[in-house]
């Protein structure tokens, strides 16, 4: 029995935050993270281009982190906010805000550090885990001196609590070049050795197989639970006849490749891919049917997704 959708606009395809697609890069990242965690690594850097889906991947992978014995590993996802002053104090304040700890204008650094530390340790105790993972998103916004704070966290959690802290910096490769170069100097050897030694690359979609892998999920994922697949929700008759969205992967990839060559795009960022496919499915195909599919529709969808920079320029 199929469950009906009361309001079609509640569908995950209309809500980017609800839509969770697994990608080959995400699978690779999951494996890389688990490999690091299971070997007792103290940290690493997840590198990727802007809008490639790093944050979404981390949000999705965080609850999936487990030890070898399948015990979940507690984690905290912290996004570094842009600040005009890159100080330990400002970082502590941001951390306190992210852990929902109350701070005042006069809050001092040490109590703030302790509050955050005990927050992490409490989570470890609740999960009965001796590991803790801290994802520092937008790590390129940090100065290297601010990174020292994470070494302090590491030290205090290790002694006397015997909890191993693993810090993964999630950075935008285009902006982090300077940071990654400087950290290699001897002055920051203790930071480099702990957190910047292992680099994990994260990409968007880079082949037709990647595109097919993602489109297949549109044909498999269901909303609501036990309801129609994502594709079926918008093209019920076509799906009944045996049509699948994954069959468009070659055409989609071919059209995208034109743009990739023209604009030197390293990979198809998940945000743009999802936007394009969602527009294609919900706006074009659902109204005109699969038979109306052609390259022009794909071009339109890709352009609507925002992959291509706007050609309109402000007149000087």
């Amino acid at each position, binding site marked *: 029995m199929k469950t009906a959708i009361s309001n079609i606009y509640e569908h995950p395809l209309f809500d980017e935050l609800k839509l969770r697609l697994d990608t080959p890069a995400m699978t690779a990242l999951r494996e890389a993270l688990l490999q690091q965690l299971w070997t007792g690594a103290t940290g690493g850097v997840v590198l990727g281009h802007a809008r490639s889906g790093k944050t979404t991947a981390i949000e999705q992978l965080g609850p999936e982190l487990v030890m070898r014995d399948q015990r979940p590993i507690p984690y905290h996802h912290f996004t570094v906010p842009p600040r005009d002053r890159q100080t330990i104090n400002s970082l502590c304040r941001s951390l306190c805000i992210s852990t*929902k*700890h109350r701070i005042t204008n006069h809050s001092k650094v*040490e109590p703030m550090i302790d509050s955050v530390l005990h927050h992490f340790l409490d989570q470890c105790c609740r999960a009965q885990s001796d590991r803790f993972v801290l994802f520092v998103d937008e790590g390129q916004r940090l100065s290297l001196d601010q990174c020292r704070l994470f070494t302090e966290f590491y030290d*205090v959690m290790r002694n006397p609590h015997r909890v191993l802290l693993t810090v993964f910096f999630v950075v935008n490769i285009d902006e982090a070049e300077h940071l990654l170069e400087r950290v290699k100097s001897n002055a920051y050897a203790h930071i480099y050795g702990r957190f910047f030694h292992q680099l994990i690359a994260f990409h968007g979609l880079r082949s037709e197989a990647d595109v097919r892998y993602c489109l297949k999920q549109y044909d498999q994922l269901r909303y609501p639970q036990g309801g129609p697949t994502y594709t079926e929700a918008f093209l019920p008759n076509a799906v009944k006849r045996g049509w699948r969205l994954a069959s468009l992967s070659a055409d989609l990839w071919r059209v995208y490749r034109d743009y990739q060559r023209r604009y030197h795009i390293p990979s198809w960022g998940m945000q743009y891919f999802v936007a394009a496919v969602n527009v294609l499915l919900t706006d074009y195909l659902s109204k005109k049917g699969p038979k109306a599919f052609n390259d022009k529709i794909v071009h339109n969808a890709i352009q609507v997704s925002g992959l291509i920079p706007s050609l309109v320029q402000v007149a000087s």
Partner: protein
Amino acid sequence: MSEFGINLGLAWQRPFESDFAMVRRFLIANPAQTWRQLRQALRQRVDKPGSSVDAIDILRNQHVRQQCGTSIDTKVAYRRQCPECAASLYHSPFFALPWLSLCPLHWRPLTTTCPECRQPWPSTDELPYRECALCGLPSSGQLAKRVIVFPLPSSYQLFQELEQLARREQRHGYLLGAFEGSAAWQCCEMMSPSYPAYLSSSWRPELRRWRNHVQIPSGKVFHRSDRLQPAQSLLDFVYLAENRLWLNGTQRVVLNKIIRLANVSLNHHLHIANYHHLDLAALIDGPPPCPLCMAISLWFMNCQSLPYHWTHYRDVDQYPFCLQTGVEGFYKPAPQTTLFDGDDFFGTDMKFQKWSYRRDLEQSFMLMLEICTNLFRARRELHDDSLTKTITLNRDLGMTRYFDQYFYREGDHFHLLYRERSPLARIPELLPKGLRRVCSSYREYAREHAQQFYNFHQPLMDGALSATQYGQLARSFMQYLLGTEYTRYVENINLLTNAYQYLNTTLDRNTGGLTSLTRW
């Protein structure tokens, strides 16, 4: 105010920890907030009535708090701590047990002061203001510098054993009732000094190992037990309490024991007199009364009034200095005790009760002596303008060290533990020096200045009193009670008159009977 994150300091959580430890690590885990803010946050989060400690307990995600025995006062348990445990933010309510001298985790002596700042261990209210890194609220940085080795789970085995004992203690509800008096026997709870002696009878092998490790002192403890006899109510055993001849006989035996001790050991000649005129002003103005003579007088009047009626029993103890210092009556030796647990009543056999009453009389004398000695010593501190100053006169049983009797029930047996074979042996310890001079000067002063009130005065002979002599003494005491000066204290003069007549006739008829009772 929006909700903000609060930590529970779970990383420092250990088994069998006290409420104090829980609050301490909670404060350490939330250094940026004040205790007031935290309490407010706890109230917001936990929508249940209860203390902040209960709220923390609920928030720590259904971790069941290890409850300790009811006899352990968890509020003051923080006063004894192990420095090593304090460094790792741990404290157990079992540290409050007076007979536990070493920490079972570190085998270090439990102390009442912090070895670093030399101050008494802080309470939860004092914690935020204590700057010492050992006993206050250390930061994570300070804690990281210490070499803290968390004990293995097996180290908490003794606590586990003790907790089981505490749970057993919680289950029973034994109370000791007394007929026309007080029961000086206290239930042998975990906080009792005699608890190790009680344990020695039921030490399991695994617990016996701990006894040596943590140096639990066994001490010399006497033990007496008797089979319990079920009864319908407390009144099923009143036959002994109503036997006035027997009561008088037992009192005489104890009095003779005190006389002998005073004559032989202290070379002191006792006098029984009335002190119903003595108030704090008289204590300051005149020479102090001899504590030994005063104690024996108060004791004699107290127990001599017992056989007649409870109203006299209460009124006889109405001394002006008692009223001024807030002492409401003295301990009444109970000739009859009954154990009850809910609606179940039990009694012991006659022989056991006679023995226990005689011991009770001795205990009550020791209490009197302690009160009189305290009054004697406190007199030096009294001034005209501070007459109302409170003097510690051991108002209740728990405060005196001379009540060393603890009972427990095991099956159908009633057990009694006690440290001294005869409590009277400790009389010399209590008394101040130069007693003879004090005694004579007070008597002279009382004769001169309070002649009209000082109207009962009986010097006791050096030797033991015979039954007839004791009877004479009791008769003169009754005459004194019937005297005009004292009647203001007596509520029911008719009852007292009847009692006096009864005494006269009984003494005339049964002098021989009294003699025979001395064997008890």
